[in-house]
Structure formats: C-alpha cells, structure tokens
C-alpha cells in the first residue's frame, strides 16, 4: 500500500512545510499585518508601544472584537449580519432604559442581552425558516432596529451613571483592561465552540456546502438560526461595554462598527463564501483595525488623509491573504 504523502518529516522541515502552505498565510495574515503595522508605527513614534497607549488600544478594541467574533460565526455559514451594529444600538438603548428605570445592573445586563438575542432570533428565523436572503433580512433588521432604538429613546441619548460600570470600563490589571479580558474570554470560548464541538463542525459544514451538510443530516436551518442568535447575543454584550465606555446609550446607529466588524473578519482570513476560517484571525483583524486608527491619530495624520491611509493599509494587509487557494 503506497501513500503519496511524504514520510514523517523532522520538526524543522514540518515547520518549513507549514510555512509553504498558502492556507497558513491566509490564517495568519492578520497577525502578520498587525506585527508589521506595530513595527512601522513604533519606528515612526516610540510612544506607540508605551503602556499607556497599549492600554488605550486594548480598551478601544474590546467592542469591535466581540462584534467580530459574532460576525465570524455568521460569515462562516456564508451569511452576513448587517444588523450587528444597529442591534448593539438597540440593546444599548434597552440597557440604558432598564438602568434608568432602576432595574439594577444585573437585570439590565440581561435586558441588553435579551434585546440582542431577540433581533438575532428574528433574523435567524426569517433566514432559516422564511428562506429570505441573509443580506436583505439583516439589512431590514438594520433599519428596523435603529428605528426601534429611536422610538424607544425618543431620539435622545440616555445617560447612564453607575459606579461598577465605570469601573468596568476604566479599570484593569495593569495595562490589560477588564473589557479587553471579557472580549478575550469571548474569543477563547468561541474558538473552543468552533473547533472542539460538533456544533462548530456543523457551522463549518453549513457554510462549506449546505447541500452536503443537509445530505448528512446536519440541520442547517438550526445552525443558521444559532449563528444569528450568537451574533445578536454578542451584540447585546457589546452594547453593555459600549454604554460602560461612553457613559450613555446613544440611539444613533453606528455604521463604522458594521463595516469594521466585517472587515476584521475578512482580514482575519474568513471567506465570505463561508466554510473556512478561524476566530483568532478576526480577533487580530479587529486589533489591526484599532491599532491603525490609533497609530494614525498618534502620528497626527490629518483627518483628510486618514481615510486614504486607512484604505491603503487595509488593502496592504489583505495583500498577505492573496495566496488564498
């Protein structure tokens, strides 16, 4: 019995071998991009790696990281959640209203997560059972959720004053903020779910080929519902961090978070056609995007040149993923 694979290689050549695989580069592109970016910024301005600035970046990255994780699950099934940022807005308003009506922090957090979950469930139901394209359902949800947020809040920001929330948003262990730890925890959990449970395999299978997954009995409709639910729940969680961060619940929809969440996922090597990718990639993608804005501001790049620079760097970072098969 002949095998076409080479005999077990020594450790050194095994590494060399991995480095030669295009998929390796796709998966690690965002990490590499981040490293290169950090190196450049540090050379240009050593304060970039000061502990204060690292803390600033980690603080700023927590919300995007959580959203990117949620978006990853959806995109891995070949879907897209355009409503992720509006869902966060709606959940933030719900959270703010619960807080100001004296529900207490714990209950209010539950309200926020439930609000996010509700949008996720509706999305998932319409997509999986209603058979409507993801893009349209979540575009509709984008509009509807921000409308609801406006109606509920009457279009005004809801100021939320809470000592524990403030502590959560500002505190940390040394230069590692609590909120970043939460995001990290979410990412680790997501990684385990994706790669170490049957559910995760089924998510990948659904994204890779719905027909094949169905033919082996995977309940792809349920999987679709689940990923939108996950995305909604994580948007709810992100909403809490957002309110903690800015001290109020703003009804204004934030489209930057939407595009950035998808960008982080794609920079992280997840295919928009579903079925292949990781969690680590998107997490580093989110860090990369955060570091980019931070670095440009730190260097004092003018506001008009920032968008241009962002565009060029994003494409440059993606250049690393171009070896995709």
């Amino acid at each position, binding site marked *: *019995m*002949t*095998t*076409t*694979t080479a005999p077990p290689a020594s450790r050194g050549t095994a590494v060399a071998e991995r480095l030669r695989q295009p998929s390796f580069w796709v998966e690690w592109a965002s990490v590499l991009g981040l490293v290169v970016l950090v190196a450049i910024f540090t050379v240009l301005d050593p304060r970039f790696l000061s502990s204060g600035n690292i803390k600033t970046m980690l603080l700023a990255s927590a919300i995007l990281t959580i959203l990117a994780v949620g978006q990853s699950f959806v995109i891995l099934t070949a879907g897209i959640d355009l409503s992720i940022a509006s869902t966060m807005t709606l959940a933030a308003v719900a959270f703010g209203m619960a807080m100001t009506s004296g529900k207490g922090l714990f209950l209010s957090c539950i309200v926020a997560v439930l609000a996010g979950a509700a949008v996720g469930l509706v999305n998932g139901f319409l997509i999986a059972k209603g058979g409507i394209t993801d893009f349209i359902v979540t575009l509709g949800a984008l509009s509807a959720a921000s409308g609801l947020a406006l109606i509920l809040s009457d279009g005004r920001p809801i100021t939320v004053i809470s000592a524990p929330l403030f502590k959560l948003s500002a505190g940390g262990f040394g230069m590692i903020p609590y909120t970043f730890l939460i995001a990290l925890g979410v990412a680790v959990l997501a990684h*385990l779910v994706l*790669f*170490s*449970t*049957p559910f995760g*395999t*089924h998510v*990948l*299978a659904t994204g*890779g*080929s719905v*027909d*094949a*997954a*169905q*033919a*082996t*009995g*995977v*309940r792809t409709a349920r999987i679709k519902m689940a990923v939108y639910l996950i995305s909604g729940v994580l948007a709810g969680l992100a909403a809490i961090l957002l309110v903690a961060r800015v001290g109020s619940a703003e009804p204004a929809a934030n489209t930057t978070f939407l595009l950035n969440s998808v960008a982080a996922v794609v920079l992280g090597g997840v295919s928009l056609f579903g*079925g*292949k990718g990781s969690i680590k990639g998107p997490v580093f993608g989110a860090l990369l995007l955060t570091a980019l804005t931070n670095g440009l501001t730190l260097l004092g790049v003018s506001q008009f040149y920032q968008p241009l620079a962002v565009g060029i760097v994003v494409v440059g970072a993606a250049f690393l993923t171009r070896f995709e*098969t």
Partner: protein
Amino acid sequence: MTTTSTEQQARPMGDVLLEAQGVSLSFGSVRALADVSVQVRAGEITALVGDNGAGKSTLVRCIAGVHTADEGTIRFDGEVVAFHAPDQARNAGIETVHQNLALVEDLTVWQNLYLNREVTGGFGPFTYLKKRAMRSGAQEMVSKLAVNVPAVTSTVRRLSGGQRQAVAICRAAGFSSKLVIMDEPTAALGVQETARVEELILRLRHEGHAVLLISHNFDQVMRLSDQVWVMRAGRCVAGRRTVETSGEEIVGLITGAISQ
C-alpha cells in the same frame, strides 16, 4: 410490477425492508419519477439500473429524504415513513452515498467521515470532540478502501476523483445502518479500489444489511446483486431476480427493446 411477484416467491428471500409504492415526482415540467414501485430486502443486494436521466438518483433522493415525493408511499422497516429531511432517514437507519458524493470540500477527510456522527466526550454543554479518535478511525476506514491513501487531515478539495468516492463510501459503510444506498459507487474507482468496494458490499450483505446499488456496470450488477430493478424514463419497467435473468435481458429492458 406485479409480474415479478411470482418469480420472487421462487427463491428463499429476505424480508422486505423498504418498499416504495407508486412514487411520483415532477420538477416543473420534467416528470422525473412516474408511479415507481420497488422493494429492497434485508440481507440482499438490490440493483437499480437504467439509462442516464432515467430517474435512479431521484428515486434514491426520495428514499433518503432529500426530496419528498409528490405522490406515493414509502415503507421502511414495516412502517410508512415520510422523511422531510435527510437526518430523519439517517436516524431511521438509511445511509446513502450520493452520486454527487455530498462532501464538504473545505473540511478534512476525517471531518467529512464523521460529519454529524462525531465522536464526543463530556456531556451537555461540555461536549467536546475526540479528534484523535476520529482521526485514527478515519485513517483506518480509508486505508481499507483506498490504494493511494490520502492524508485524513487534508481537505477533500485536494483529493482525486476516486479518493473522494472512497471517502463517501467509507462514510456510508462506516456506521451501522439497516440500509446502505450507493449511487454509482465505483464509477470513479480504479481496479483495485473497485474490487475492495465490491468486497465491502458483499461483507455488508453478509452482516445482514440491505444494500441498494445503482450501477451502469452490468458485470458488477450480475455478479453482486440478488434482485434488479430496471428504470426507463422515470418509470420502473421491470424487476427480476438476478439468477433468473441475463445481461442481455436487462439491456433489452433498459433500452426498451424488450418491453416488459
């Protein structure tokens, strides 16, 4: 179909495990199945033959829960079943090797083999995949069938046509089931692999499973099967006990030269 019943009584036969009766299915204007009735017996290899586009795969997809028939009933293991999804058929004990193989290209060989049959540890929310067990299990299954054994950690996308076929067959045969359906399982296989798959099919029969085999290879059909059903243009035009027919008769039935 009624003409075949006398012949069937002539030999000792297994119990009827699956019985399709009057199954019809149309796709828009294309009537892919018209009043098809076939039986599959436990402990037997049943062949289904017919020209391209005769409706064989469509019938299999109805049995496996991929399509739902417009009309007609399917009985499995004594009960009328109406599978609306493949997982229902799979849970009832029907494993299928589809003609298009139904593999997820971007998953690895072992992930495909164990898809929806994962080996897990832990319990409840703490269920986790036993990857090592699945990898070595997969290695073992595949090396029984394939000659150029692909690495089970490589993605299906990188396999040759025959290697894919081997993976799909392993998946269907690897999990105990009452009925294994194989839609042209050896079409892409080389000599040695074909021989191994034929052995596998015989072993399945020996172990008491029923096998429904679609094949364009008459030698194979005549060599392996106990019963042959012939389809033509969406209809089941004949059923024969293999020992009581000949390659020529079957060809005649397929082409319509012999009309029943």
